[in-house]
């Protein structure tokens, strides 16, 4: 009887592998390349124990421990210890994401789309698809573990021995298998693919947070997170196998639970009942701008949290900036020393450029949602009712202006609060605030450009993103790559005065604001005149 449940699992594994014959190699190659290139660049960047020990000093604060994890190797910060400390956790998260996406795709998503129904109509076991998916992802992770492990050893970097390298690889693979297993369970619990992926990612975030709290305060707590267990393998320091075995053991337990739940449930059913949605719209939703906000709510909240964390992560390194940069010639090239300002203050303009550019992304996404809505035939629902085109476009425009300010504000708040915690001589909030807000006219110029293109040449509106990438390359990397000055002047971000190092100059900022207003006016006028396709 039980054999029948798994009938043709082998056939399905081969079928799944052929479906993913590009996806899986791309994941493995990308992950392995990141690992190898970081390992060799670490060994080139920091060649003496003194240099490594200087880096270890910058890691000795709670913010860093919360971010990258606890390490027992800081006293003797070898190349291996550094690699395991700074890279293992983030690579493991990437592997977890790979496993979550692969498992969710071939379990609940295919069930929702009806492919599983088709497969199950053949003489195939009830559990064959789930077990085939788990096997496929398992094989992928084992492969990744072996390539990473032996590869790191073959690189021949001092202090990265065979056992440590194998545990490094096995740690990644075990994390991947664990998250494949937990996703398999969530795929049984939730009855749609969004729920499955959502629960799995929520679990990943929770695992990261529990580990962060545990690593900073209470070591026992870290053992309640799979990522915390992984850190406790102390790769290249003590090389413990037991946490890896524990992770795989937990994964096998979870897979058995998933198989059991799958065996007792109906096709398309889940164990978490889907709760009925609202039968009436809230009063906020009943306006064009309310609708525009509502359909972007989740994305905007995610970006808001992201910007706060981005600011905070920059802020947490500000305290050690001076000691950190002394040894790094690369960064010296980026920042030209100016008399009368601390290195941290001189670092401000570059930080603000990067943060402003990151904040531009959600801002532009809001404007482009208007075009996306037209493509999905959603704008016709507004325009065929008592809503003018200006009001439709205006809803997205107003939100984008608010988002440009709000995202920048959140990034500054994150930067400032984290910097206050780590710096002895903190920079005032108002200094940071004005250094960031001075970038708003540049962001508005980008809004203006997208509004103009959506009005005038909707089919070419993607040009905005090209221009944005150009801006990022020339303004951020321009100093490093020695681009001529005029190249950064072609970008709005290249005209913003570098507060607090430079004096405030209202001239370029006002001109950018005027350009933005003109672009926006022309964009609205042309949007009112063109054909709406849907």
């Amino acid at each position, binding site marked *: 009887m039980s054999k029948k449940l798994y009938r043709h699992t082998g056939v399905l594994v081969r079928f799944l592998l052929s479906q993913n014959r590009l996806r899986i190699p791309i994941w493995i190659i990308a992950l392995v390349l990141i690992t190898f290139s970081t390992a060799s660049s670490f060994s080139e960047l920091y060649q003496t124990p003194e240099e490594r020990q200087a880096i270890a000093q910058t890691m000795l604060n709670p913010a860093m421990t919360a971010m990258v994890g606890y390490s027992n190797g800081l006293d003797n910060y070898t190349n291996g210890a550094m690699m395991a400390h700074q890279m293992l956790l983030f690579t493991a998260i990437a592997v977890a994401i790979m496993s979550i996406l692969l498992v969710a795709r071939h379990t609940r998503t295919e069930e929702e789309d009806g492919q599983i129904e088709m497969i199950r109509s053949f003489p195939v076991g009830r559990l064959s698809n789930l077990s085939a998916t788990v096997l496929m992802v398992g094989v992928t992770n084992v492969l990744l573990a072996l390539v990473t492990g032996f590869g790191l050893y073959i690189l021949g970097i001092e202090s990265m021995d065979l056992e440590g390298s194998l545990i490094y690889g096995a740690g990644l693979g075990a994390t991947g298998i664990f998250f494949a297993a937990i996703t398999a369970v969530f795929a049984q619990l939730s009855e749609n693919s969004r729920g499955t992926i959502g629960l799995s990612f929520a679990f990943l975030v929770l695992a990261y947070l529990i580990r962060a709290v545990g690593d900073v305060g209470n070591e026992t707590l870290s053992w309640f997170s799979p990522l915390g267990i992984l850190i406790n393998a102390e790769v290249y320091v003590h090389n413990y196998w037991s946490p890896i075995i524990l992770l795989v053991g937990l994964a096998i337990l979870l897979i058995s639970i998933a198989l059991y739940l799958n065996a007792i449930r109906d096709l398309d059913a889940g164990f978490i009942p889907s709760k009925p*949605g609202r039968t009436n*719209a809230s009063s906020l939703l009943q306006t064009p701008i309310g609708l525009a906000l509502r*359909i972007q709510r989740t994305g905007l909240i995610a970006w808001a949290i992201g910007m706060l964390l981005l600011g905070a992560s920059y802020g947490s390194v500000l305290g050690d900036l001076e000691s950190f940069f002394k040894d790094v010639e690369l960064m010296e090239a980026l920042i030209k020393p100016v008399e009368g300002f601390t290195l941290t203050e001189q670092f401000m303009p570059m930080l603000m450029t990067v943060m402003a550019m990151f904040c531009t992304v959600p801002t532009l996404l809001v404007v482009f949602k208007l075009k996306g809505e037209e493509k999905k035939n959603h704008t016709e629902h507004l325009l065929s009712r008592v809503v003018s085109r200006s009001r439709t476009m205006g809803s997205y425009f107003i939100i984008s202006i608010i988002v440009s300010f709000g995202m920048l504000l959140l990034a500054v708040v994150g930067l400032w609060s984290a910097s206050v915690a780590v710096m002895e001589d903190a920079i005032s909030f108002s200094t940071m605030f004005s250094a960031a807000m001075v970038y708003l006219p540049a962001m508005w110029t980008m809004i203006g450009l997208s509004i103009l293109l959506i009005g005038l040449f909707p089919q070419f509106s993607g040009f905005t993103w090209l221009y944005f990438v150009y801006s990022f390359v020339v303004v951020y990397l321009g100093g490093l790559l020695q681009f001529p000055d005029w190249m950064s002047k072609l970008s709005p971000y290249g005209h913003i005065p570098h507060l607090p190092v430079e004096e405030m100059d209202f001239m370029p900022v006002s001109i950018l604001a005027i350009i933005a207003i003109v672009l926006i006016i022309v964009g609205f006028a042309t949007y009112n005149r063109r054909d709406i396709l849907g």
Partner: protein
Amino acid sequence: MTIIKTNNLTKKFGKFTALNQVNLEVNEGEVYGFIGPNGAGKSTTIRLLLGMMKATEGEAKIFGLDAWKDAVDIHKRIAYVPGDVHLWPNLTGGEVIDLFIKLRGDGNKSRREEMIERFKLDPSKKCRTYSKGNRQKVALVAAFASDADLYILDEPTSGLDPLMERVFQECVIAAKNDGKSILLSSHILSEVEKLCDRVGIIREGKMIETGTLGDLRHLTRTNLLVETKLPIIGLSELKGVYSIEVKNRTFSFQVDSEYLDSIVRHVSQFGIVRLESAPPTLEDLFMRHYEGVGGAF
């Protein structure tokens, strides 16, 4: 009073002419059937009427106002149901209906509940879970719950089951009885026949026929299939008989509706064993029309 009037309405996309000098008139209190195959220009005409596209030449007037310039004012009195209803996947049906009613103006709460009940829609489900028919119901509920003077319905029943199609037809008739005007675009001839007072046929961007159903019926032919005891003689000489095909004793041919009586009388002399008649399909209508035009295509 004329509700919709287009005057040589033309729309070109680059070199391609999607609509070529279309004249269309919908009067107050009438149901106008707008029929034609896919890609004939029905939806383009409706997009122009809704002011979503601008005419290359000619003009469209609704309530005497310009469809392009006065779009927002016109839409205060219009309810529109698209053929392919695309909704926001993470909103519930109920939320979308409320939004639609609100965007058109003030809605009627009890009408909303009544329509949800009649169309048997579960408003608490997310739109992503709805089938095509259910998404169409969302648009229909929002349309019929509102107090519009003109309903523009673009193939509104293509995803509905027969029971819901009947509910839809009842709603259209009720609206008509209230003196509302309806532009019903469709390629389901039976639905048009049941509901419409006047009909316009469009093909390749041109209005090829327009008039009351009675006017158009002269164009229609019924398909007959007859098996007789004795071979039928003299069929081809009769008036109103076309495309005769013979297989053993089974004759299949087309008949002009007006000559149906005399032809059946003639055929019955030969002892009818089997008689099947099929109503004219839209295709027949078109085919007949093109024959009449005589090699225009």
